[in-house]
């Protein structure tokens, strides 16, 4: 089971749950199972611009992003982009 970790604001929106264990083949599969999916994706189904995703410490915006494959023990971190000072 992959693990998804949410930042504080999203965890509050998920009923206080910060850590999710999910059966998912890709980053997109994992994120779309979350109860906060409509905060992660816009109405076109695109990941919002200022959300970054790290899989096992690697920023997947530089890779295949939602198509990035997950291993059973992958750790997925959702992180708001650091923009500004």
């Amino acid at each position, binding site marked *: 089971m992959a693990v998804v970790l949410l930042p504080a604001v999203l965890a509050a*929106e998920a009923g206080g749950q910060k850590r999710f264990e999910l059966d998912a083949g890709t980053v997109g599969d994992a994120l779309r199972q979350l109860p906060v999916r*409509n905060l992660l994706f816009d109405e076109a189904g695109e990941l919002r611009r200022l*959300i970054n995703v790290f899989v096992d410490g690697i920023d997947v915006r530089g890779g295949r992003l939602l198509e990035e494959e997950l291993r059973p023990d992958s750790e997925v971190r959702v992180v708001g982009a650091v923009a500004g000072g």
Partner: protein
Amino acid sequence: MSVLLPIGTRKGLFLLRGNGSWEVEGPLLPGWAVYHAMVDPRDGTLHAATNNPFYGATVHRSGDGGASWERAEELGLPEGGELKLNATWHIEPGSGSELWLGGDPGVLFRSDDGGVTWELNGALFEHPTRDRWQPGAGGMCTHSIQLSDGAMYVGISAAGAFRSDDEGASWTPINKNVAAEFMPDPHPEVGQCVHKLLVHPQRPDRLWQQNHCGVYRSDDRGDNWERLDGNGLPTSFGFPLALDPQDPDVAYVIPEQSQELHYTAEGRLGVYRTDDGGASWALASEGLPERAWVAVLREGLAFDDDSIYFGTQSGAVWAAPRGGGRWTEIARDLPPILSVEAAQA
């Protein structure tokens, strides 16, 4: 009588409870910029138009006074279109059991399930004049929604004011005599930059608006507007507007220096009041700082049967009794205030 003021700030929602003295509760919804929050007088539910730079635009509601919150399940623009929902701006109770929500880009939603799901108003979204609308500095926001005597009004920056006489099935531009001095044609059919629009609760044919280019009143449901500045107001520019629920000739504005200098006019925190339908205006600022450069945003001024209230971008909330009495600072050092509403506790 106890009063509840939902105060929307850039860093969450605060509740001010007043009954002789004032208590501050919050922040609620931390992490969300609350563009507007209100208590639905029909069932006591708190609704908040909430926005986050990372997680987008949504609406939260609480049926237990802010102790717990639920988020809208369905809210957005049609898939496959060019437009996306940029922000939620204003929530208004309907004339029946419905709720209305205004947002950016110049959109209106209706909810018939208490704010769980929201349906886009197609007539406004597909309005034939939309290609002549343009965003103001705050975006192209539907910030004013008024329902009165079978009519519905919206104010959009910078698209203008619109009226519907068929519950939102169609919308008529109502911008006659309203200036758009930033346009090649200063009196176009649409494109005016409404900053706030209100209908008098006792006199449904009387509308007021603070516009980018002046303060206006209409006595015929928006068909014609009369410009009211240049007669006691220091400038024509400002955002907030308040009325007196018992006297349709009374209105309040807080002018700003100019469209380029968004702070209070003449270096003072000046609330201006008219009691003759806008024929003249006078300072109603007893108790307010006489040297101040602050900003009060379009949703930052509210009123009820007894008092008027406003909140500043510098985090202070002021209240004065209806009729022009002395102002009292009832809260300070909050985050930048985006909205103030008044409800019975």
